[in-house]
């Protein structure tokens, strides 16, 4: 047990994303995004397809696919500037400084390697634990994420597990190192609602036990309501609003955030067979238009919105929004 840090000993670190931009070839998936995640808290990144939320997650974990590159800005976790690392230092930061929780657990586990081995590998390779030590740590890791009978499960292949169990294994892998930052990329989207509830409860329990800093990517406002401390809303590769969760739900300022919340809340409260509240149009597929990325769908857009890009402005304590029409909107 000497090879891994004790659970409660590590506390999450503050995470600073500063003017981060990511390109896939000529296409800018994420542009000039800045946000800070206080140590030991959860920030939800909310957005639809093309919002850049997964790109931000992959960039922050330094696991962007080949072809994608950080074209500007930085991500700093604690004292470590992740975006400046290369080679061995980068490898060592992965999983330790920042760990990544994938969306589709069935694809994220290697189908031909036993579950226990996939966790033990981290301890064996990264900390030089012996085979027996690593196996014991893996068993412990499985027990920590609430897997009953971890000895048996460790010997199974991923194909023999249910979706919820696979997601727990993925969490065990991500937490094997007690990372300073946990990046969760929609880890419950593919799960049944009861399993999602179990996973949400598990992650928030683990977060409180270990003081993890969490960046949680989602498109589901109810998941945001359930576990976020702060929320960053992304649209078309831009940060459009950033504040704490209560302010967002009760005093959102950006028209997109407001529309998203209205869709979500009316979906919960409106009567049967009543029309659903919608946002017209669909998220930009090939890249955002000029000006404000949301202007083609925005009910409040005027001429300026189509040509000039709004920059995030402070609109309250710990609250920024990027919109030209903020003076007019209450």
């Amino acid at each position, binding site marked *: 047990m000497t090879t891994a840090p004790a659970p409660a000993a590590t506390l999450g670190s503050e995470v600073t994303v500063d003017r981060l931009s990511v390109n896939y070839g000529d296409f800018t998936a994420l542009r000039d995004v800045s946000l800070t995640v206080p140590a030991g808290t959860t920030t939800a990144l909310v957005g639809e397809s093309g919002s850049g939320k997964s790109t931000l997650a992959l960039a922050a*974990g330094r*696991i962007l*696919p*080949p072809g994608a590159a950080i074209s500007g800005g930085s991500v700093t976790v604690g004292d470590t500037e992740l975006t400046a690392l290369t080679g061995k230092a980068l*490898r*060592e*930061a*992965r*999983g*330790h400084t920042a*760990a*990544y929780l*994938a969306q*589709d657990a069935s*694809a*994220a*586990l*290697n*189908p*031909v*390697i036993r579950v226990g081995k996939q966790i033990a*590998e*981290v301890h064996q*390779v*990264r900390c030089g634990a012996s085979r027996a030590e690593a196996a014991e740590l893996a068993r412990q890791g499985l027990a920590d994420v609430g897997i009953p009978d971890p000895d048996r499960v460790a010997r199974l*292949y991923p*194909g*023999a597990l249910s979706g919820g169990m696979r997601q727990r294994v*993925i969490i065990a*892998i*991500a937490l*094997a190192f007690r990372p300073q930052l946990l990046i969760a990329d929609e880890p419950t989207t593919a799960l049944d609602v009861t399993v999602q509830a179990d996973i949400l409860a598990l992650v928030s329990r683990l977060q409180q036990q270990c003081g993890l800093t969490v960046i949680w990517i989602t498109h589901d406002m109810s998941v945001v309501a359930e576990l976020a401390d702060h929320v960053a809303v992304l649209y078309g590769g831009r940060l459009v609003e950033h504040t704490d969760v209560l302010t967002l739900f009760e005093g959102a300022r950006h028209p997109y955030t407001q529309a998203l919340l209205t869709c979500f809340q009316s979906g919960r409260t409106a009567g049967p067979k009543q029309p659903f509240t919608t946002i017209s149009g669909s998220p930009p597929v090939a890249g955002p238009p000029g000006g404000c990325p949301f202007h083609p769908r925005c009910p409040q857009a005027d001429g300026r919105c189509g040509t000039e890009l709004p920059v995030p402005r402070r609109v309250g304590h710990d609250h920024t929004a990027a919109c030209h029409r903020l003076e007019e909107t209450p």
Partner: protein
Amino acid sequence: MARRIAVRILLGAFTVLAVVLLTFVLQYVVPGDPARSIAGPKATPEVLKEIRGQLRLDDPWWSQLGHYLSSVLQGDLGTSYSNDRPVLSLILERLPATAALAAAALVVELVLGGLWGMWEALRPKRSWLLATVNVGLLSMPVFSLGFLLLLLFGYQLPVFPIDGGSGPARLVLPAVTLGLMGSPYYANVVRDSMREALSSSYVRTAVSKGLSRRRIVSRHVLRNIASPVTTLIGMDVAVFLSGVVFVEKIFAWPGIGQMQTDAFTDLDRPLLTGTVIVAAALVVTANLLVDLLRSAIDPRAASEAP
């Protein structure tokens, strides 16, 4: 698992039986008189008649079929017309040579194709030279490649013996010919499945664990491509063991393939059908082994339907 194996064995047995029946039918369809091919062109009608009687060629077809089936089931594949010896022992005599060639060719194509495919998969850019070589080899007839190698390394630079002699040196040219012919298939399978694995979500998980590229490739990627490569090996083993006619003929390799061509020109029906039946049995066995091997490597294959 045991049930699955049993089903596979049963299916294999049926396949071989079907081949046996088919060869029987083919004996009727193939033109030419076996009695004449045994006795030679100058034989008298009396001699021919006697031979036909010995071979039961004048019996009704169902009697012939019954006799044929019962002897095949007892391991008696008949007697060769051309040299008057049991077909099975003739085949078993040739099998080691063919097996040696198959094994050597397999090593060549596996090493060559595997390294080639891995190299291509790990390089970001496509190599036009390799793509051309790939298509060139795929479209080249086996005898042209064989003759080319023979010309280059047998006559121009006499490194390897062309004919006669024995020992491993003689094996090199035919094995390289077969290996070269097969390598682009391996290269393509290895390259494509490796690229797929490299861009997979589980490799991303491995990267996010902070593993080195070397470990990711050796532990996470190679195990996942083992399954398609094993399938390919299984198909090749079957093809090679059932005789590689052209290569054995070109390099005068005393294997089953060469025997097959001789049997064909001599119209030696028992020998010809014997080689076909043995080939079928080998193909079925190779497939079964590959299937078991895949189940051992890849837990997903173990749950497939038989």
